[in-house]
């Protein structure tokens, strides 16, 4: 797996940035400012053949195993995103792609308010450019993206964030105003240890069923205990896990009697060179220890059934579940990634996001 952020930057910062005349063009950017609350944000970017070719060339240059995306995957990542997929593409005078800055629109819940935020993904600058020109092009694409989609633009994103590999985001810090928000802690546990977790008698699992309509209210009821959690509702979960082409996720709903008590989503795949079961998402009420143990049990059991010995999850140090997971036996290790971001809300400095954001792998494009 590779981060799709700033993949073009190799080596040190440029010593010279030359002036250049750029033609900036928004590629079918029908994004009209994210709507908060519960409505989908709508329109997405059109991926042209030229953009795809540039994208493939840029990522193939840094990843020998890179495989071009199928059209269905592009559609899922752009047209079908519930929160929209705004992008900015920089073209030169001959119409060639110089840089592309793109995001997946999503939301963070702050009390009763949904805040539009952007996960920056699939960004690149043409590998045919010299390093100084790449920096310049990428910075221009980012600036234009910010101007049209982020605060103070009406309804604009309040935060842009991403999960780059550490060495690759120097330009984000040096030129784009990004800062480290949280560590990307890898959390691991043996599948057998997880499977041994006790399941209380009044809890039961429903495997691979539809996301229920009561989920939205269940999340809203308990989200206030999570700081600033990324929004979960059936629209997001269907898009994230049901509609993605060619990727199989397993999931369970946890029920206590007839009521919803939580859920978990699992994907068996290769991660950092080993076969693991990745916990893509999980949720239950904060402090519901029985539900946490039951979800551990389900995850461990599923991993073992798939022939995998280790479960891996990820999260930041300020996640409210961070301590509890360690007390249940999950062990923390470093990863190659970090969560970086840039706040556009003057009332919310980076440090506030850093201290309160709660995310899972579902809020990354890594799984």
């Amino acid at each position, binding site marked *: 797996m590779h981060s799709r952020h700033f993949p073009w930057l190799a080596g040190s910062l440029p010593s010279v940035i030359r002036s250049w005349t750029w033609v900036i063009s928004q590629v079918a950017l029908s994004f009209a400012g994210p709507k908060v609350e519960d409505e989908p944000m709508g329109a997405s970017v059109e991926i042209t053949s030229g953009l795809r070719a540039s994208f493939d060339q840029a990522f193939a240059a840094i990843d020998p195993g890179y495989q071009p995306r199928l059209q269905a995957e592009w559609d899922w990542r752009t047209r079908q995103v519930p929160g929209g997929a705004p992008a900015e593409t920089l073209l030169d005078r001959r119409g060639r792609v110089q840089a592309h800055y793109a995001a997946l629109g999503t939301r963070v819940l702050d009390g009763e308010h949904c805040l539009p935020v952007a996960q920056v993904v699939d960004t690149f600058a043409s590998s045919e450019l010299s390093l100084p020109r790449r920096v310049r092009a990428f910075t221009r694409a980012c600036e234009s993206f910010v101007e049209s989609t982020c605060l103070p633009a009406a309804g604009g994103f309040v935060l842009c964030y991403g999960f780059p590999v550490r060495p690759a985001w120097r330009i984000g810090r*040096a030129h784009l105003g990004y800062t480290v928000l949280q560590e990307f802690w890898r959390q691991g546990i043996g599948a057998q240890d997880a499977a041994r977790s006790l399941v209380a008698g009044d809890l039961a699992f429903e495997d691979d069923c539809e996301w229920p309509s009561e989920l939205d209210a269940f999340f809203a009821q308990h989200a206030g205990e999570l700081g600033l959690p990324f929004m979960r509702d059936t629209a997001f979960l269907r898009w994230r896990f049901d509609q993605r082409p060619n990727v199989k996720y397993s999931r369970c709903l946890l029920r206590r009697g007839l009521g919803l008590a939580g859920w978990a989503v699992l994907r068996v795949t290769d991660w950092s060179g080993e076969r693991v079961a990745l916990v893509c998402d999980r949720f239950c009420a904060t402090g519901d220890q029985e539900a946490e143990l039951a979800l551990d049990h389900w995850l461990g059991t599923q991993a073992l059934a798939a022939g995998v010995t280790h479960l891996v999850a990820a999260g930041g140090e300020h996640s409210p579940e961070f301590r509890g997971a*360690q007390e249940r036996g999950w062990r923390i290790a470093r990863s190659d990634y970090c969560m970086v971001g840039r706040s556009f809300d003057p009332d919310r400095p980076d440090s506030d996001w850093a201290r309160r954001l709660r995310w899972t792998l579902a809020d990354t494009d890594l799984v």
Partner: protein
Amino acid sequence: MGEQSNKLEVRPLEPQHIAQVLGWYSMRKGTVMEWLLLDGAWPVHSLVACEGETVCALLPVVQLGDPIPGERPAMWEWGQPLVAPGSDAGAARGWVETLAAAFLRGQDDPEGVVLTWSDTRDPVPFDGLERLGSWSMLQGLPTGAEDGDWVMQEALPLDDAAAAFIGACAGASAWVPRRSSAYLDWRYGRAPGGGHEATGVLEGGELRALAVTGPPRWEDQPEECLGDGPSTHVPCRVLPVYEFWVAEGASRPGQALLGNLAGQARAQACELNLALPSWQPAFDLCVGMGMRVTPTSRDLYARPAALAPSGPRASQAWNSRALDLEALRCAWPWSLGDAHFSWCPFESSGPAD
């Protein structure tokens, strides 16, 4: 130094200034402040802003370890600036900015590093700092150490051999302040209140792991709830581990040392508390023995120890020379001992107060 800004004069800190500052808030920790800022073995880096003989503000500065000129960049820690009570907020901010600029101008070392720890809930008191990330601790009572053919030595002297061992563990990293025996003696031997103890593991007569603990203390642990309610903290009694160094390939002696420290903590009804960057092998060793990664409310900030030049040509030079934060994150094996102000605080008042 003698920099003038209107009637304001910036001077190196002197003992009579400490007396004035202590009087501001009826501070009782004068011994700590004098030890940290004025100990005679080290150059004084702290600055005061004075109007006449009256101290208006203090920028507390401690150098991390001993710099090796020409080999390793120097690192300094800035403490929370102190300003005279009742000062106008705007004037106070100006004093702090003047002090910070005077310090940076005095160092003029773009490869040097200025660090400060700041509570995430407070405004950062200085301009030009970049957030390096949250400051997390390792905490718990590790278990699982095995017996081996080594000797556990408590009350280990922090002498030249200990300093050389730490230097060898730190390796060739560009961001390691050297801990000389003189530094170790100041930092732990002469710290007010005492109570610092070094423990070592010797294998075949050679030091393989070393730790320095301090006196037990109460540490606030953030509660899990981060919602809209008031943030709550749970006090926890901890045995702080200021230094924890393990030789390359010495994971089992390292485990034995951690097990010994756990025994010391248990005997004092404490948990162990230490800070390590996650890229260090000792981090995995600690987690593997059951220590928890525990976030604190503090963030770490850094900046080059020089004023950024103005003008495009100067900016290019600055960018090519100035501090690379990612390199710092990945090559500075920080420990609790590096955080002088955060863990031996004296009462303070920032310009925003």
